[in-house]
């Protein structure tokens, strides 16, 4: 409590002894005010809609029909037997299992090459980043053409070396891999930029130390310095890559519509299809809930496993 003494003394002498909680309260109030818009918007545009989705997941709501009733776990029970959903889960898994690791390691390799190279850094950076910045709606058309089984440049090039190219987007056996290729093309640049940033932050001295310690080959230095020092970057890149891979949608929507015969059905596409095409909002919401749970579990597990290992303090 502020205690004013010597109020009778000629020159007003005063004291500062505010109890701690008072000052802290002032700071906390400022903090709340600064964070308030963010909290409000998060609530409005993330929390509330997620709650709505969870609620809708227990109903049979269909767009176009008014009214709905609560059906408990019926939607979830139906999911268990839904062939499309299972196929779509599996496809998403395969897609992510290809795109995430390949784009991470490719980006890492390219980043190290660029970092080691003196000239053309910004050119290469831009060249590899360009796909990240491009309109997939439009690029899909180009890819569709590049992948064309008979007039496409890829197969034409393969034919030059005597290989009969596959029917990339047309055959159910290859469509997912073709989409994965596009996915990699789209993701590498993003990861690359992050890795480049990570690489520049590694102290040069560590490489010198490794050399003096007898790390003769580039591989030894990679194992001893680069890889461990990139740990936090790799964790972040992995997180982002996995999330993005699981969220694949645009290419499927624009190139294959999940076909042929569901060979390229992926989770978000199935959800979109159920919700906006078949208009079964309740059922789609149940799928969304499952999708969110998968993401959350994935991230939780990953952080538990990796976080310990990459932050060295």
């Amino acid at each position, binding site marked *: 409590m502020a205690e004013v003494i010597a109020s009778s003394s000629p020159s007003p002498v005063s004291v500062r002894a505010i109890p701690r909680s008072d000052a*802290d309260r002032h700071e906390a109030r400022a903090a709340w005010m600064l964070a308030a818009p963010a909290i409000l918007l998060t609530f409005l545009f*993330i929390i509330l809609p997620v709650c709505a989705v969870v609620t809708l997941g227990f109903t049979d709501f269909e767009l176009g029909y008014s009214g709905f009733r609560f059906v408990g776990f019926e939607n979830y029970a139906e999911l268990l037997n839904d062939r499309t959903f299972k196929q779509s889960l599996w496809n998403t898994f395969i897609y992510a299992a290809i795109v995430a690791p390949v784009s991470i390691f490719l980006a890492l390799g390219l980043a190290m090459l660029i970092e080691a190279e*003196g000239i053309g850094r910004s050119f*290469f950076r831009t060249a590899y980043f360009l796909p990240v910045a491009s309109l997939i*709606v*439009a690029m899909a058309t180009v890819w569709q053409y590049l992948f064309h089984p008979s*007039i496409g440049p890829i197969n034409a090039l393969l034919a030059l070396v005597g290989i009969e190219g596959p029917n990339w987007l047309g055959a159910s056996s290859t469509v997912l891999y073709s989409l994965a290729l596009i996915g990699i093309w789209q993701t590498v640049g993003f990861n690359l930029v992050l890795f480049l940033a990570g690489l520049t932050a590694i102290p040069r001295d560590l490489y010198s130390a490794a050399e003096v310690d007898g790390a003769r080959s580039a591989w030894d230095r990679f194992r001893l310095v680069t890889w461990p020092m990139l740990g936090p970057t790799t964790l972040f890149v992995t997180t982002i890559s996995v999330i993005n891979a699981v969220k694949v949608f645009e290419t499927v929507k624009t190139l294959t519509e999940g076909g042929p015969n569901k060979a390229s059905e992926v989770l978000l596409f199935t959800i979109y299809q159920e919700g906006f095409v078949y208009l079964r909002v309740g059922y*789609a919401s149940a799928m969304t809930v499952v999708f969110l749970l998968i993401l959350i579990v994935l991230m939780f597990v990953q952080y538990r496993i990796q976080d310990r290992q990459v932050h060295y303090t």
Partner: protein
Amino acid sequence: MTSNGFPPARIARLALLGFGALVFLSPYIFMISTAGKTQSDIFTSSLTLIPQRWYFFENFAKAWSRVSMPTLLFNGVVVCLLILVIQVIVAVPCAYAMAKLKFRAARAMMVLVMLGLLVPIHATALPLYVGFDRVGALNSYVALVAPFTISVFGIFLFLQFFRSMPDDLIHAARLDGMSEVGIIARVIVPNAWPAITAFSIFSVVAHWNDLYWPLIVVSNQAYATPPLGLLYFRAAEAGDDYGALMAATLIITFPLVAAFLLAQKRFVEGITMTGLKG
């Protein structure tokens, strides 16, 4: 490590990088080539990059006139800028409070931020659509912008950046007589440009290219964004006008590429400094 001389290892490295760049750029090469071709020149069985008839002007003219390109670009710029500005105005103070003020809720907010990172617009589109309909806000800039005004990614990124800013700087500002808002406006933001640039690239790239949400909330062409406009060209049923489509794509992609080229140095710097790398 140095750039003088061309030993074999270096030649191999350059060759590898060059080849990779060629592969990554090849779709663009075809795009540019196609934008210069007549409709009948495009799907031929012979692979030529050079158009037989130079048709760039016609295709660009067509792209410019068939959809109202100025409106599309204008909408794209307005939407992206609104989103970006609001995102920054909302995220920066929040991140500042979390990073530099004694704030009991900071931990809970951190959890919220991490969860928020996981929720894609695809997951919440349906309830949001219904909500916007209820308030009669479909087909407006509000509908295009509002759901993205909160960027948890932005909060996350700025948080990392602010944590690395020295406390003393903020103390000095308080001693100099600034309020918390004053500190944000006069000290934090002017020094957070690398982070803001990095974030801007992420944000603008994402929203300039977003198709999913505009497709749902916009049916009035007056509010169409560039990707939506491109869809006019991409009718599903028959062979489309690919030359013009590619020309339109180039027009729409160009601002982004230019922006990246201008900002790329700061962008990488920003990522490095935000500790996004870890």
